[in-house]
């Protein structure tokens, strides 16, 4: 089984992510062999999140429109639910070497409220709609985590 072992940062279990339009979008909109735009960001691996989230402004270079909307609830919102746009993206999770990363061709990623990631090293969250597809080991004493798939 391929795996990804990453040292935790002070912000928690962070992973590098290459973000592109989904493979379905690319097939329909890019000629064969034509590279799709890619942006890179750090994401927090978060088993408490049911879905992936992203800081919406970083998606601007991809020139995508949302594919749906989602109601989102957090500790701060209490019982109130926020309606947020949801994008269809491809995500490549990796540590040092993208060639050994974990690729997902079409992931629903919800845009967080503006400024939600202010002060954090990461610009997105890997939630359970991705984590459910693999196995996560969290090694607290050694401050590292491992994803296998």
């Amino acid at each position, binding site marked *: 089984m391929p795996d990804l072992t990453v040292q935790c940062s002070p912000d928690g279990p962070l992973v590098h992510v290459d973000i592109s339009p989904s493979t*379905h979008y690319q097939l329909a909109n890019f000629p064969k062999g034509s590279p799709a735009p890619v942006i890179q960001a750090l994401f927090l691996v978060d088993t*408490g*999140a*049911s879905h992936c989230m992203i800081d919406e402004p970083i998606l601007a270079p991809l020139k995508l429109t949302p594919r749906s909307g*989602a109601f989102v609830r957090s500790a701060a919102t209490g019982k109130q639910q926020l309606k947020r746009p949801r994008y269809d993206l491809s995500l490549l999770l990796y540590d040092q070497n993208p060639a050994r990363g974990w690729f997902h061709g079409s992931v629903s990623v919800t845009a967080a409220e503006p400024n939600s990631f202010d002060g954090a090293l990461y610009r997105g*969250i890997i939630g359970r709609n991705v984590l459910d597809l693999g196995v996560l080991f969290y090694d607290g004493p050694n401050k590292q985590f491992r994803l296998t798939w």
Partner: protein
Amino acid sequence: MTTALERDAEAYINALPDLLNKHRGEFVLIRAGDVVQFFASYEDALKAGYQRFKREPFFVKEVAPVERVANVTLDLEPCRT
């Protein structure tokens, strides 16, 4: 100004009572406020949407009486007016 997402989401809400009768559990593709087609999966609806509308906005939603809520640990502040 209403965005394409807001317009299509409103079209979904308005059509939902009728959609629930015949298409509950299916995935509806909406474009410019019009219901286009239904699919068995979210992925099939996305593929069809991209093939047909390319880079243009379109909207995909599961036809369901109650919308699932995403829970996150991130602090999301409710909008205040």
